[in-house]
């Protein structure tokens, strides 16, 4: 696990520089996302992702946690522009130094699959029902590795075997409906890693599966990504899933990143009321609970512009400032002082407080009144 | 012509979320009238205008059967807006009165076939088991004929009258509706809220009528209304073949048949055909056929 000790390096420049400073280490991060915004135009305009920025290093495992509607899936699929036609994506996405947003469709197709692999949420609908499993795997091999015929089939069988499907060779001729949910997901994983991409996006890979299978799939993901030194963005709504697999976690709410920390810090020193509430709502065996705590209220209507912090209406720690100013994602040290009005947004930026999550960044939170470190998972904390 | 497919059942089954009791129905019925686009509005307007004109036939036109050989086969003039046919009858009047017959056929076919089909299919679906199996075999056998063929046969056997056309087409079409509603009933029957309703002490018949039927009906309503147009077309086809309305009764299909022998009197053949096309397409436009995909229509 990477160390988070020490102060962040402040990006050079004054306030004239772009508002966000991305962490830089000796090696350029593999992925750099800047001001990514996703809007859906259905009957009204919905802003699903609100200008988020982050970075990931090669081989890093990062978790992205949030409830449905938080924009987590949309933000991930937007990286390779896999969203439906009703979506508008803007911002910058750099992969290994290459800007993806300006690529043409055909150039982007190289990236899709070849450098970015995706594992989808619903293994039942994500496979083509009228093509054999073998076909669906070999077509990736043909596309990205130039394999054909027997060579491709042998490799497909090997891959299928590698993800834990028994009798792989015979199974190539099967159709998706003949596979169980877990096996289908394994197939999708095999398809995703076969071109040896540098990044794997796992969009709620276990949500649709039985609990017993979930653990297996997660373990599979972990070992495969470590083996191939792939970076992984693991998206989930379940905090339990990211423990042990990710090094860093980002928490999303209403299309924004509201907290970013190492996994350990997120569990032991949660610094955003929403994260704490998420922890609280996990059922626990070791504590007596008469009632499962839930978060009061409901997620905001993303069709309307939100004034102030989006979590404020449901937040037990809200203060006056929360209602009017949307807190930026800033280091926890500064956040703890930021409640007082002398910390204007301008000053926060100048002092290098506002940051985007990256491999070397410190614990960040978007809250004017973050909970003190003592109120963590271990203790109870009653929402008012 | 073509308004069926096995998939229709499957599509119909994907329908709206059921609602308890009857509040949902009313809201649905009202909501269904609001036109979504220009085309739907156009369709509704045309239907209203044409139906009104047809109903007001005595006020708008003269006698459709009155022959006047001295003006036979004249093209449209001020006296005869759409011209006259070979027997000197006013075509404008024949179109209006013929519209009555065509419409009559369309509406009654749907009424009869729809009622029989829905009752039959609902019972079959709800009772299930062997009874359902047998009832559906019968339906299958009926459906093994292309619809018009069966109607043709029945019409020929019973003799060409407007009554027989209606019966013939209704006999050919009721199995479609039976199958459709049976599929719906089966799906809804299995949904939990029916069990819940029974847990509350409602008896099976009450179950059927109060919960299952109203929800199945939502999808059926659209299909039935759209089918009125196709029933009119089917009726006109049979009349064209000489198996429908008997002369001198006017009807759009039979008028086209009469026009066959007089290819140079273009006004004779154009008027009924355009009338048919206008009316049926208006029904289709109003029903959203031009603005929605098949799926959308069936899950409205």
């Amino acid at each position: 696990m990477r160390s988070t000790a020490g102060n962040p390096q402040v990006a050079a420049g004054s306030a004239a520089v772009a508002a966000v400073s991305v962490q830089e280490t000796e090696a350029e991060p593999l992925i750099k996302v800047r001001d990514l915004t996703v809007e859906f135009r259905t009957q009204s305009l919905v802003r699903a992702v609100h200008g988020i920025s982050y970075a990931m290093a090669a081989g890093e495992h990062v978790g992205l946690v949030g409830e449905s509607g938080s924009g987590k899936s949309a933000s991930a699929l937007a990286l390779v522009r896999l969203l439906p036609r009703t979506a508008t994506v803007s911002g910058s996405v750099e992969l290994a130094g290459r800007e993806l947003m300006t690529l043409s469709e055909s150039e982007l197709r190289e990236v899709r699959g070849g450098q970015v692999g995706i594992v989808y949420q619903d293994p039942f609908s994500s496979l083509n029902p009228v093509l054999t499993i073998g076909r669906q795997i070999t077509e990736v091999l043909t596309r990205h590795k130039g394999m054909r015929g027997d060579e491709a089939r042998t490799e497909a069988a090997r891959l299928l075997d590698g993800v834990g499907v028994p009798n792989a060779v015979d199974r190539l001729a099967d159709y998706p409906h003949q596979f169980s949910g877990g096996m289908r997901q394994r197939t999708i994983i095999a398809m995703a890693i076969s071109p040896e991409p540098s990044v794997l996006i796992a969009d709620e890979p276990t949500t649709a599966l039985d609990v017993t299978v979930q653990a297996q799939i997660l373990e599979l993901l972990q070992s495969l990504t470590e083996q191939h030194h792939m970076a992984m963005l693991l998206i989930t709504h379940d905090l339990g899933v990211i423990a042990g697999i990710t090094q860093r976690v980002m928490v999303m709410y209403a299309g924004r990143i509201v907290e970013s920390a190492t996994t350990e810090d997120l569990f032991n020193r949660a610094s955003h009321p929403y994260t704490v509430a998420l922890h609280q709502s996990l059922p626990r065996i070791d504590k007596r609970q008469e009632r499962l705590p839930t978060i009061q209220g409901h997620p905001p209507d993303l069709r309307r512009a939100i004034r102030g912090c989006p979590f404020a209406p449901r937040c037990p720690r809200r203060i006056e400032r929360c209602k009017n100013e949307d807190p930026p994602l800033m280091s926890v040290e500064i956040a703890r002082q930021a409640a007082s009005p002398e910390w204007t947004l301008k000053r926060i930026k100048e002092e290098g407080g506002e940051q985007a999550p990256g491999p070397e960044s410190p614990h960040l939170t978007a809250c004017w009144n973050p909970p003190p470190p003592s109120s963590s998972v271990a203790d109870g904390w009653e929402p008012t | 012509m073509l308004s069926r497919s096995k998939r229709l059942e499957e599509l119909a089954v994907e329908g709206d979320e059921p609602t308890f009791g009857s509040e949902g129905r009313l809201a649905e019925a009202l909501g269904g009238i609001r036109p979504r686009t220009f085309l739907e509005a156009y369709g509704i307007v045309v239907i209203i205008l044409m139906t009104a004109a047809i109903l007001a036939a005595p006020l708008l036109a003269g006698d459709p059967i009155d022959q006047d050989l001295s003006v036979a086969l004249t093209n449209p003039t001020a006296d005869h807006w759409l011209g006259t046919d070979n027997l000197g009858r006013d075509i404008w009047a024949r179109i209006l009165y013929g519209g009555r017959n065509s419409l009559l056929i369309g509406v009654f076919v749907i009424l009869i076939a729809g009622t029989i089909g829905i009752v039959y299919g609902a019972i079959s679906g709800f009772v299930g088991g062997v009874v359902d199996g047998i009832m559906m075999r019968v339906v299958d056998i009926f459906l093994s004929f292309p619809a018009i063929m069966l109607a043709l046969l029945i019409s020929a056997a019973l003799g060409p009258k407007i009554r027989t056309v209606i019966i013939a087409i209704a006999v050919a079409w009721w199995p479609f509706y039976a199958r459709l509603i049976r599929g719906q009933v089966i799906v809804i029957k299995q949904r939990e809220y029916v069990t819940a309703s029974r847990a509350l002490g409602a008896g099976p018949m009450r179950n059927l009528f109060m919960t299952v039927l109203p929800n199945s009906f939502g999808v059926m309503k659209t299909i039935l209304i759209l089918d009125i147009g196709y029933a009119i077309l089917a009726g006109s086809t049979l009349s064209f073949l000489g198996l429908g309305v008997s002369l001198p009764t006017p009807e759009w299909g039979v008028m086209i048949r009469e026009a066959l022998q007089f290819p140079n009197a273009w006004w004779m053949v154009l008027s009924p055909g355009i009338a048919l096309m206008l009316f049926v397409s208006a029904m289709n436009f109003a029903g959203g056929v031009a603005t929605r995909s098949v799926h959308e229509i069936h899950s409205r």
Partner: protein
Amino acid sequence: MGWYILRRVALVPVVLLGMTFITFVVSQLVPVDPAAAYLGSRGSITTEQGQNAIVETLNERWGWDKPILERYGIYLGNLLQGDLGDSSTSSRPVSRDLVKVVPPTLQLVFASMSVALLFGIPLGVFAAAKRGRYWDQLFMVASTLAISLPVFWLAIVGFNVLYGRLGWAAGPGQLDLFTTPPPSVTRFVLVDSILAGRWDAFFDALHHMAFPTLLLGLVIGFYFARVVRSEMIEALESDYVRTARGKGLSNWIVLYRHALRNAIVPVITLSGLAFGSLVTGVIVVEHIVGWPGLGQYAFSAATRLDLNAIAAVVLVVGAIYVLTNLVVDVLYTVADPRVRDR
């Protein structure tokens, strides 16, 4: 999959039997005394003796003096021997008339079906690709009109213009008056012309087929196009197409190997039903263009209320329809693997 096909095939005789029953029942519904009606149109045989003798023969042959179930049995027996009754207009066995008349119609039907598929499927794909935009909206309006009009009327108007006024379409008959027909081997003019090496006859026949084939093919093609469009749109918005795109596959592959391959499945089922509509359309169109097929035959039979002929036509068409749907269902299992294991 074998079981499914077996079950399906086993159903066929049951269905055919049911069909004969229905046809039988309906023909018994004729409100007049059947014997008299049968005799009535053949001119009069005035002597009472003569009439009785004929009634005798009919009773023997069809068992009209026997109870209804026995009558059905006799009817069925006759059917299986190929006896479909005699036409009240031509006084000849209907079966003989049918043999002459079915092949030209089959030619028309297959040709029209091919046109419908070749025209309709790409059109549907195109409309789906342009969904929501101008071309798609135009398509939706045009196709709605196409399915709202009476085909027979369109045939009349079209024929009037294209043959009567412009002389593009060919006249009545499968061949021109002045073209000597090729020796009749298969009874299919197109095939026979090729077999005899008579290319002039071949192209002449094609010319004669052109108008009805295109008319029916285009109208039914519009219907196919709508379904294809609908299915394609659903496929293009599905998760598995998103996966395919996510794999970086080319647009071509995504469109055809993934989307269309799924979208086409309901079209297969539809072809079976389209066949039924096609035959219906053929019946009216043949008369208008003067094509000497089953449709023409049915049309005159309908006009003259020749019940035997009509019943025979309905039965034959029904049987063909059942067989076609059987083929279609088998094809469906090939196309959609999910069905095979039921």
